[in-house]
């Protein structure tokens, strides 16, 4: 019997040791080691600033400024317009957008809808938490963080608006803009409705006004680098204002904002113009979205430089290989910055080279210039020209100054009226080629696209095609899956 007890004792000790060797804390209460849990964090102003960094990083999405999913706000507006035309080298990945055949189940449209809201979510976390960590000592730092978050929020919403609203009318209470998200909450109960244009503009303008106020009183230079301007500083927030005011038809405000930016960031001299696109100098960049090594770039969907694949080529009315016809010619500093003639098996052809790479590289790793001073001149010129005939001289002067900075031996022109507006529109097409404006500019002004150089893939598509002013395609459809979970959101007409 003694032996029996010995065995029982041995077995019990063994079992107990083995069972308690693994306690609940070892097995069940585990915490992630490679991510930061978001229940208690951000827990310092440093972390709040790191969330702001993340908001910026989300601009790199393949649906936003990056490539791979349509480059919604960097190159798609050019690809959907008469600036860039699909070639035989295309893999047809962006056909649904660039041929205007999108329906509400289009995957690219879904990406364009989602990407800005992913930016906004991170900005909203910053705005939710920044005040918690603000003290009298770090007030100016907090201003710097909060001002950028507000500007980012306004900018991303405005980008959505440019694609999804049917018109940019400032005061309409019937035209629908997009939901304006100001709170961080991820839940099935979030079912925002589309604001009308008027309310939407009010929100955008309010955020920007607040941002400008905060960014005017900060603790440190936001963009100290001489080769890039990765963040939105005071000039950046004002540049966003200038663009918004132009779309809104608030010309006085547009002129003021643009003038402030022009003062802060003069035009780049011709010699340093090309350097803005390959990170050699910051030039007149106001804000450029950064793509670090290994993070790609904006241009691959148009010209994939790594493999010399030019899926979308500059239209002949923009530029040609010999540089003597088209809007941008070889006496223009923009010609060599934007285009290059590179050969394939079939012979040489003109490609968009803007985003080939940094320094001398051609790996497609380039930054995207969201705002440059050139645009500010054009905003001010257009705002002046549209304000009153009295301001046409000033408008023409803006245009002449800009052209003189770009074109060798430029002689000033003197235009008025419709001719002046056309000249400004053409100059926008030149200056902002490949920078995400043309489709929106046409939508804002003539509401007609005529692709003289053909539509879609040249071997299977019509030689000339148009998008009429009444076409539903001017506004993207609200994606099907948004509508299926959010019954408050209204579809655009025609879809």
């Amino acid at each position, binding site marked *: 019997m003694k032996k029996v007890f010995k065995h029982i004792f041995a077995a019990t000790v063994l079992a107990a040791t083995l069972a308690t060797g*693994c306690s609940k804390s070892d097995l069940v209460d585990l915490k992630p080691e490679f991510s930061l849990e978001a229940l208690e964090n951000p827990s310092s102003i440093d972390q709040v600033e790191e969330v702001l960094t993340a908001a910026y990083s989300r601009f790199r999405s393949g649906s936003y400024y990056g490539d791979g999913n349509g480059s919604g706000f960097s190159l798609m507006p050019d690809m959907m317009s008469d600036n860039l035309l699909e070639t035989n080298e295309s893999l047809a990945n962006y056909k649904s957008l660039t041929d205007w055949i999108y329906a509400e189940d289009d995957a690219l449209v879904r990406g364009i809808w989602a990407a800005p809201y992913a930016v906004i979510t991170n900005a909203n976390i910053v705005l939710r938490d920044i005040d918690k960590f603000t003290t009298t000592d770090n007030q100016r730092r907090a201003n710097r963080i909060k001002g950028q978050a507000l500007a980012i929020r306004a900018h991303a919403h405005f980008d959505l608006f440019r694609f999804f609203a049917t018109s940019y009318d400032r005061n309409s209470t019937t035209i629908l803009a997009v939901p304006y998200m100001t709170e961080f909450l*991820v839940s*099935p109960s*979030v079912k*925002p409705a589309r604001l009308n244009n008027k309310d939407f503009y009010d929100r955008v303008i309010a955020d920007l006004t607040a941002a400008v106020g905060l960014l005017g009183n900060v603790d440190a230079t936001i963009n100290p680098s001489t080769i890039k301007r990765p963040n939105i500083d005071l000039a950046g927030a004002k540049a966003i204002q200038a663009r918004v005011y132009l779309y809104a038809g608030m010309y006085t405000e547009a002129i003021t904002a643009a003038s402030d930016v022009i003062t802060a960031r003069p035009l780049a001299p011709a010699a340093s113009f090309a350097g803005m696109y390959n990170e050699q100098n910051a030039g007149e960049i106001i804000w450029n979205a950064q793509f670090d090594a290994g993070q790609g770039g904006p241009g691959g969907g148009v010209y994939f430089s790594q493999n010399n694949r030019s899926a979308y080529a500059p239209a002949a009315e923009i530029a040609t290989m010999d540089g003597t016809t088209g809007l941008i010619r070889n006496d223009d500093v923009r010609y060599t910055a934007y285009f290059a003639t590179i050969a394939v098996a079939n012979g040489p052809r003109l490609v968009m080279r803007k985003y080939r790479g940094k320094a001398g590289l051609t790996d497609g790793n380039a930054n995207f210039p969201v705002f440059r001073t050139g645009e500010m001149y054009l905003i001010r010129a257009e705002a002046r020209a549209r304000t009153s005939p009295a301001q046409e001289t000033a408008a023409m002067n803006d245009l002449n100054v800009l052209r003189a900075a770009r074109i060798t031996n430029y002689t000033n022109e003197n235009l008025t009226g419709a001719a002046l507006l056309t000249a400004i529109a053409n100059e926008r097409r030149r200056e902002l080629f490949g920078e995400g404006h043309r489709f929106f500019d046409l939508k804002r002004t003539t509401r007609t696209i005529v692709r003289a150089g053909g539509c879609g893939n040249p071997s299977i598509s019509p030689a000339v095609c148009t998008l009429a002013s009444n076409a539903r395609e001017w506004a993207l459809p609200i994606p099907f899956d948004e509508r299926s979970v959010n019954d408050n959101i209204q579809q655009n007409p025609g879809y």
Partner: protein
Amino acid sequence: MRKLLLGLIAVLLFAGQVLAQKTIRGTVRDDKGNPLPNASVVVRGTSVGATTGTDGSYSLAVPASATALLFSSVGFEPTSVDIGTKTEVNASLRAAATDLENVIVTGYTTTQKKKFSGATVSVTAEDVRKQPFGSFDQALQGKASGVSVVANSGQPGANAVVRVRGNGSISGGNVPLYIMDGIEISAADFASMNQGDFDRIEILKDAVGTAMYGSRGANGVIVITTRRGRAGQLNLNYDMQLGYSQLPDDRLIVMNSAQKIDYELRRGNPYGWSAAEADSLRNVNFNWRDALFQTGVTQQHQLSASGGTANSRFYASLSYLDQEGIVQQTGLKRYTARVNVDNTIKNWRFGVSMQVGYSKIRGTDEATAYIGSPLNAIRWSNPYERAIDPNTGDYQQLGGVGVLTSGQPNAAMELFVNQRQTLQFKGVGSAYLEFHFPFLKGLYARTNWGGDFAQNEGSVYYDRTTYTGAQAAGGNGSLARSANRQFRYTGTTSLNYKQTFGDHEIDGGIFMEAVKTDFRAMGFTGYGLTNGFTNETGITAGNATNGYIPQVSGSGTQNGLQSYFALLNYGFKSKYYLTLVGRRDGSSRLGVDNRFQNFGSVGATWVVSDEGFLENAGKLDDLRLRASYGTTGNYISAAGDYGHLPQFGRISYNGANGWSLTQPGNLNYRWEVNRTINLGVDFAFFKRRLSGTIEAYDRRTNNLYFNQPVSQTTGFATIPGNSGTLSNKGIELSLRGDIIRTADFRWTVEGNITYNRNRVVSVPDDSIINGTTILAVGKPINTFYLVPYAGVNAANGNALYLTQAGTLTQTYSTADLRTFGTSDAPWFGGLSTTVMYKGFDLSAQVNFFLNRDVFNNDMINLANPSYLFDNMSIELLNEWQKPGDVTNIPRPTSAGGNAFQSNTTRFLEDGSFWRLRNVTLGYTVPTNVLTKLKIRSARIFVQGQNWWTKTNFRSFDPESSSPVLVGAQYPALVQTTVGVSLGF
């Protein structure tokens, strides 16, 4: 390796030292009176033993104290005979209906099949062992009712997709739990495991078996037991196979050179060929398929030994597999070693199982629509272009670095110049210690601990001369290395009791279990491989000027499970059995308040044939009715290990680190719970010559892991959640008939068929469209949702579609989307037959998957008129060209509302197939010949895998689990091997 060999030798030597005082002779026969060779004879209570010779005789020196001899042999019921004063002891062993038919191994318990109320299938291990698959799960296809096994890839070593009773989860995992010798092993890295070591494979399908595994049991459990040593003379076996693999028939036909050139000319000559160029190109007819595929050689060797004494037994093996893929450069090389040892010392039992495997897997890019994948390039490359330029002898790159004229990468460069391989090490080891309490017969304590360790080292080298290498940062190639390791331990400690009291039988236990998994990964990609080296020496240090800035990554995760459970089997009068299972699991993967949950099952068996009223039922030998009900959880959640927590992920912008919200989290995350009802009937007639099982089940998944779609204005598309119900109901039938059963001639036919009906019962948001499929209430998951394609308008060549109202339209509209079939075959099964005549045996197995559809994206890429610049399907030769043309292929131009549309039924194809999975012809050398050769056993055989397939699906292979054939398909191998098995 050397140490391991020494260990193996030591174990081998350990078996067999005995002292003797008295010699006993005798003969062992089976119940028909035939001599039984290789039977084991052991002196009871000692390790003294011998093995019978080919004539069934033995001679054994026994200690004077010996009282009885224990006779045993595989496939026979052991028996004990008292020695007394005899010097000749003969024995007659009664044939056990095989081991498989006798018991069920659940991983925690071993129960007589008669008493077990659960639905299980045992797969004959020999059938799995003999098939030369790099991943053993592929060999399970068609072997078990209710278990769908689909190969997604013919890449040697690639895992199959195994589903037990349908897909029970929408957003979570559907992979069964794999248990080997009592511990959980990953449902991966089977490439480094040797199925030659498998003794039993049991698949637990209903809650009686799976509820024992609680939160891990929902998707079924596959229990593998490896071979153990048996007391007796040392057995040494050598198994070898040698053969080759080939490409299956290709049913997706592309144009030849003349067809393609003529087609291009008709479409406006986009490359601008001159008449002379066109004429010359028409005759090229380069076959890209032949350039990339090959006949692969397979060889496999296994050396195994087993033996020991009654108190100490071992099994050990070494194996080597070298399987070349049918795509050049691909293949699997595998080395494994295993030692299993079992010891009995007084009331203690102790054993160890250890396997180590090392493999080298060379693969290629699969299941993509990427132009850089060589397997796509064979479809898309124009037949008038060549891999090698005949003039220069170098790779043809007429379109620039690494690319053809068309801009397609030269697939031969992608395959031959670039390199891609994985080195995998896997070790699975477990040990048990069992103590049988001497004061109470039937009471014992047991603890079983083991680890499953896997380490992968992957490397991908892109040469700078190739298309993909030119894309690397800095444009000069890249070298990516990745390493990951996963370690999981499983520890189970239990107190068990098994006893019979008159009419009552009790068998049960209480258990504690701990399972913890730890995973780590890291990797880097270096650039600028300019000095000719393809390893790290080739990498150039990066700066902003050269762009070679390397990428570094790493990640890791853990999960744990803490459990308590109890099992009880109760039998009454050997006719009525009840099984109860209760388990409480705590998991790290769930929201804090929901971490612990209970699971359980109840099952009952009635052995009807043992009832008095059936005693004279004549032809009926066996009839059992079974019923069970229970719950299990699905541990493969949709949210991953920490998905219940909202989390920020690290992200960089402008050289600074940031925190981006990557997971929205859900603090109420719970288990997805399966509730299974099972009814089963087992029967045997005509002296067991006809036997079978019918099972009917109702598997219902509640609290579905459901990545609930949310408004994208939140910054997220979905959040993890639990809601909705999914149902799988089905019937399984297995039948086996011994049509002819004589001493020299046997003919057996076996078959199983399963019907599984999958239905979404409820989801929070009905009709969620996901690409080409829809998740809709009342429909199976993976139901296709497409616009019906209705041919071509002969007047203008426009594609026609069917509206909801059933009228024809030329306008494609998402309003006309409709539901079609599903890619998960509701009907599947296998039929096999074996004929044995004297030493010859011939067997064949045909598997089928019926009533399934697959969306052929591979076809789309050959039919989209935009891809004119690359090769296309011959179907396009029938394109509409002029008014009046009656055809099914619309005109290629998109003007006038004829844009090419892919989400239509034009590309939905019947994915059903019948496949001759295996044919084996073997010859077992008779005993009299063997005696002369002084070997114990010998068998030679020749077998074929996938020799014949019947399908209408247009691709290499209809076998895929995905609803969509994306592209770059690595088809299942058509294999032929010759094998030899020798026993010494």
